[in-house]
C-alpha cells in the first residue's frame, strides 16, 4: 500500500538523531566553519555515543555501514531497512551540519565502501577503523577509469604509488580506501580498491585544502610512495575480469549516492526552516490553499522551493527504499542525487537572497549553508555525471554512444 511517510518504526530514532544534530552539530556549526582544520573534539563524545547505539541496536542500523546488503532472503514482505534508516539519519545530521557529519569518526565514505564490498573476514577486521575514500587524482575528476595510481603485486602484498586529492577526512581517518590500477592497459576492470592503514610506511598527508564550504571537514592530499599494503586488504575480487568491467567498484555509488542526496536534502531543509521563520517575523505567511500567484512574491518563491525540496526528499527516500527491497536502484540513486544536488544548492542560495544582507552575513547560518551545499552537487558524481547516467539508462545508450 502506497505510503511515503517516515516509517513508523524509525520515527523515534529520527527524533533522537535530530536532537543530537541540534546539540552537537548545529550548535558548533559556526565555530568550525571559522576554525578550518581545527579538530572538532565534541565529535569524539558523539562518535562513542554512536558506537554505543550501534552495539545496542538503537542506531537502527544507520551510519556508514548501513549500506551493506544483508542476507535475509526469507523475508519477502516490504522492508524498511538500514538504507532507509541511514538516509533518514543523514538528513537529520545535515540539517545540523554537513561538514561535521562528514567529520564523524568511523563514519567515512571509506566505511561505506568497506561495508558495500568487503567479505565477512575483512568486515570483521576493519570494523573499528575510520576509513576515508581516495579516488580522485590531480589529473582527473569524474573520469574514474583514468586512475593512474598503481598497485603492483609483490609476494603477499601490493606496492602502491600515486597521488590522491580531495580525500575527505584524509587527515583524521586512520585508514584510506585507495583506488588503484593493477594494469593500466586493461582499463576499468583492473581498478581495485585497497584498505590502506595510515600507520603503514609510505602513505602520508601532503597538505589540507582551504574550501568554499564544509570547512569543518578536512580535505587532504595523500601521497602513496612505495606503500606496501597486505594483499588481504584488497576489497573484492583480486582477479582482472574484463567481462565485469567497472561494475564492482562502481556499485558502492548506488549505495552512497542516496546518502549524499540526503545531505543536500538535510542542508536545504535547514535553510528553508530558518527562512520561513524569518519570513513570518517579517509578516509573510505561506498559504497552501491560495494560488501562489495571488500571494507575495516571497511566499510564491518559498512555495516553489518547498515543492522542489519535497521532490528531492522523496526521490532520496525512494532510492533507499529500493535498495532495502533489493531492487536495482542505480537509475533512481542518480535521479535523487541529480535533483537533490541541484535544488539543495538553488534553495540555499535563494534563501540568502530572500533574507538580503541578513542572509549574506555571518550572523545567520544561511550564507554558510549556501556554501556547504555546493559540494553536494559535485562529489559522488557531479550533476552532469548523474545526468549522463540517467540519460544512458532512459535512452538505452552505452557510454561510447552517449559521451
Amino acid at each position, binding site marked *: 500500500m502506497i505510503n*511515503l*511517510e517516515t516509517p513508523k518504526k524509525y520515527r523515534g530514532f529520527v527524533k533522537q538523531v535530530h536532537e543530537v544534530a541540534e546539540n552537537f552539530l548545529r550548535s558548533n556549526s559556526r565555530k568550525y566553519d571559522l576554525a578550518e582544520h581545527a579538530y572538532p573534539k565534541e565529535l569524539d563524545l558523539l562518535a562513542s555515543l554512536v558506537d554505543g547505539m550501534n552495539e545496542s541496536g538503537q542506531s537502527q542500523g544507520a551510519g556508514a555501514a548501513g549500506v551493506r546488503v544483508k542476507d535475509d532472503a526469507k523475508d519477502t514482505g516490504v522492508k524498511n531497512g538500514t538504507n532507509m534508516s541511514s538516509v533518514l539519519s543523514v538528513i537529520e545530521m545535515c540539517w545540523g551540519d554537513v561538514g561535521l557529519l562528514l567529520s564523524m569518526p568511523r563514519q567515512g565514505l571509506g566505511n561505506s565502501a568497506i561495508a558495500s564490498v568487503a567479505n565477512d573476514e575483512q568486515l570483521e577486521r576493519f570494523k573499528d577503523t575510520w576509513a576515508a575514500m581516495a579516488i580522485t587524482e590531480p589529473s582527473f575528476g569524474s573520469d574514474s577509469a583514468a586512475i593512474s595510481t598503481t598497485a603492483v603485486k609483490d609476494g603477499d602484498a601490493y606496492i602502491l604509488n600515486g597521488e590522491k586529492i580531495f580525500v575527505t577526512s584524509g587527515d583524521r581517518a586512520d585508514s584510506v580506501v585507495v583506488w588503484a590500477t593493477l594494469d593500466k592497459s586493461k582499463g576499468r576492470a583492473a581498478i581495485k580498491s585497497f584498505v590502506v592503514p595510515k600507520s603503514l610506511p609510505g602513505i602520508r598527508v601532503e597538505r589540507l585544502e582551504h574550501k568554499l564550504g564544509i570547512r569543518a571537514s578536512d580535505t587532504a592530499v595523500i601521497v602513496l610512495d612505495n606503500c606496501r599494503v597486505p594483499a588481504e586488504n584488497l576489497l573484492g575480487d583480486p582477479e582482472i575480469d574484463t567481462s565485469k568491467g567497472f561494475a564492482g567498484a562502481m556499485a558502492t555509488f548506488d549505495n552512497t549516492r542516496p546518502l549524499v542526496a540526503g545531505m543536500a536534502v538535510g542542508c536545504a531543509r535547514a535553510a528553508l526552516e530558518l527562512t520561513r521563520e524569518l519570513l513570518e517575523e517579517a509578516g509573510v505567511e505561506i498559504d497552501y490553499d491560495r*494560488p501562489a500567484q495571488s500571494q507575495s512574491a516571497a511566499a510564491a518563491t518559498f512555495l516553489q522551493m518547498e*515543492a522542489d525540496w*519535497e521532490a528531492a526528499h*522523496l526521490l532520496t527516500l525512494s532510492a533507499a527504499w529500493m535498495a532495502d527491497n533489493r531492487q536495482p536502484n542505480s537509475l*533512481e540513486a542518480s535521479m535523487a542525487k541529480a535533483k537533490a544536488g541541484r535544488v539543495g544548492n538553488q534553495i540555499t542560495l535563494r534563501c540568502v537572497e530572500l533574507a538580503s544582507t541578513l542572509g549574506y552575513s555571518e550572523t545567520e547560518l544561511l550564507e554558510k549553508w549556501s556554501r556547504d551545499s555546493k559540494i553536494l552537487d559535485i562529489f559522488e558524481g557531479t550533476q552532469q555525471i548523474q*545526468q549522463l547516467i540517467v*540519460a544512458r539508462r532512459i535512452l538505452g545508450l552505452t557510454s561510447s554512444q552517449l559521451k
Partner: protein
Amino acid sequence: MARTDPMGVGLKVLNRIAQSTVIDRLGLRDAAEKAVYHGAKNGFRAAGAAQRRFAKVGGPGQGARPSTHATGVFDLNPTEDQQMMVEVIEEFAREVLRPGAESAEAANDTPKEVLSQTAEFGLSLINIPEELGGLSPDRSAVTGVLVAEALAGGDMGQAVACLAPSAVATAISLWGTEGQQQTYLPAFGGDDVPAAALAVAEPRMLFDPLALQTRATRANGGYVLTGLKSGVVRGGEAELLVVAADVDGRGPSMVLVEPAAEGVSIADDPGMGLRAAGLSRLKLEHVQITEDAILGTPDDYREMIRLSRLAWAGLALGTAKTTLEYVKEYVPTREAFGEPIAHRQAVAFTVADMAIELEGMRLTTLRAASRVDQGLDARREIALARKLTAEYGMKIGTDGVQMLGGHGFVKEHPVERWYRDLRAIGVMEGAVLV
C-alpha cells in the same frame, strides 16, 4: 467505521468489465471515429439538455462517510487491487482513448460510447462506499490519482470528460447529507450515469477559488444564485451541477444545481486544449435554490478544492509520462550530423531531466494522496504536488515539442496536443476530484 474486505475495488471493477461487453472494448476504436463534429456553438443556450429530474428523498442528517486508515511502512507498491485496476484502465487508455484522441478533439466532445464504457467500468463508483451503492470498501485518493494518471496516459481531454461525473458523485458521497446522497447517488450506480460537472473556476485574472464572485444570497426561504463559471466539463450535457459559490454568511461553498432550473444557461467555451472535455461557461442568473441545495460546509469546500487539485496532478502525471515515452522513442531514431540526436548531451540531458522531474512530481503527488487516505493533513503536500505538476508538467510538455523540433509543432505527432493539454495543469480548478 469497520474495516471491510480489502479485496474490493480491483476485482469488482474487473468483474464489471467482464459483465460488460469486453469484446466491444477494442471495437470502441471505431466508435471514437464516429463522433460527429458539431463545433463550438456560439452564445448561451438553455442548459439541462437531458432533463433528468432527481426526486428528493431522505433527511438532512449527516450522510455516510468513507473510512480512512493508516499504515506505518514506507512503501511504493500499490495494492494488488490498485495494480489490477490500473492495468485494465491503462489498456483502455492505450487501445481506446489514445487512438480516438484526434477525432474527439475535432468533435469537441468525448464519444458517448467511450463515456458509457467508463461508466460500465464503474469509474464514478470507485470512490463511493459500498453502503451508498459504490464499489469501494475504503475511500482512496491514491486509487483516484492512479486512475487519473492511467486515463490521461491515453488522452487528457477524454479522461477529464470520463472523470467529471465521478467528481460530482465523489463530492456528494464525501460531503452530502443523507438526503442528498439518497437523492443523487443511485443514478451514478445505474446503467445510465448522468453527465455531471463540478463548476469552480470563473473566467477572470488571478482567479482564486477562495474569493468567488458567484454568489448565493438569501431569498424566498432559500437562496438566489448569480454568477459566471468557466471550465465546466460537457456543460451542455450536464444533468447535475455542483457549483462553487460564496453563500451568504457562510463563505465559499458547494451548491447543488439542476441545470433545468430557470436562469441556468450554458455556452461552449473551448480552450487551447482539453477539447474532448467539451469545456463550457455556465451562466447563473437569479437561479432559485433551496436551503438543502447547499453541499457540505466551507471547510468541506476547501477540502474539495484540494482533492480537485490532486486529481489534476494525477492527470498531469499520465500525460507527462506519455510525452516522455514518445520522446524516448523518437530521439534515438532521428539523425542529425551523422548520428542519432540522442547521442548529443543537449538532447539526452533534456530527456534525463524530463524523467527526473516526472519521478519527483509523481512521488510528491502520491505522498499527498496517501496522506489523504491516512486521514493526515495534506494541505501542504497537495499544494506542493500542484506546484510541481504545473511547473514541470508544462516543462515536460514544452520539451516534448522541442525534442521533435519542427516535427513537434505539426499535428503529424501528438506532442503538440499534449503540450496544449498540460497547460491546463495549475490553471484549472474543480472539474475532477479524487
